[in-house]
């Protein structure tokens, strides 16, 4: 499954890119699995996703919890807790 992933703040810096299109294995069906897959993929992923509890996500523009299913998602944003205001 082709999926657009965008990264923000220190997740973006550690991944060395703001976005990419990944071809996701069929057995990666929820956010937890996605983060583990990215962490195992390469050194950058290992650095960015070593602590998955520090990662927040939006699936197709909607905030999603850790175990959220990816379903037919087209775009996923991964980022640290927000610090605006």
């Amino acid at each position, binding site marked *: 499954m082709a999926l657009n992933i*965008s990264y*923000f*703040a*220190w997740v*973006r810096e550690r991944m060395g890119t703001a976005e990419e299109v990944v071809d996701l294995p069929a057995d990666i069906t929820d956010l937890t699995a996605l983060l583990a897959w990215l962490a195992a993929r390469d050194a950058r992923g290992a650095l960015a996703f070593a602590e998955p509890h520090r990662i927040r996500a*939006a699936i197709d*523009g909607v905030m999603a919890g850790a175990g959220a299913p990816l379903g037919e998602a087209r775009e996923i*944003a991964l*980022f*640290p*807790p*927000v*610090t*605006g*205001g």
Partner: protein
Amino acid sequence: MIRVAVQAAAIDVGAELDRHDAGGHGASASFIGRVRGDGGLTELFLEHHPVLTQAGLRDLAQVAAERWQLAALTLIHRVGAMAPGDTIVLVLASSPHRSEALAACEFLIDRLKTEVMLWKRETFEDGRAAWVEARVGDAVRAERWS
């Protein structure tokens, strides 16, 4: 009348106030947040999401408009690189009733901290740069409203 903006340009408080006030309202509460130069900070960089940041601000504004009786609401957030003293956020809430304007303003600034997709990176005069960690206190303040 709700106005929401995410912008890299400097926030012109006077112009926003004039625009917001065009109708004339009983009570206007405002909040202006500025970049602080504490600890030798030289630059604050604010990263945003091209779509979701604006959507988050708009959602927040809608929640406030449903919860309080507001004649006008302005919510402007600056993004990108800023220097100490620069205005980073502006909230203007107007209502016939002062308690509604004040509460809406405080609600918006508290929620902005925890709900809108924005990330701060601080750079200091010694060259150090770090992303700001989310603060528990902000989440606690934001929770007061739920």
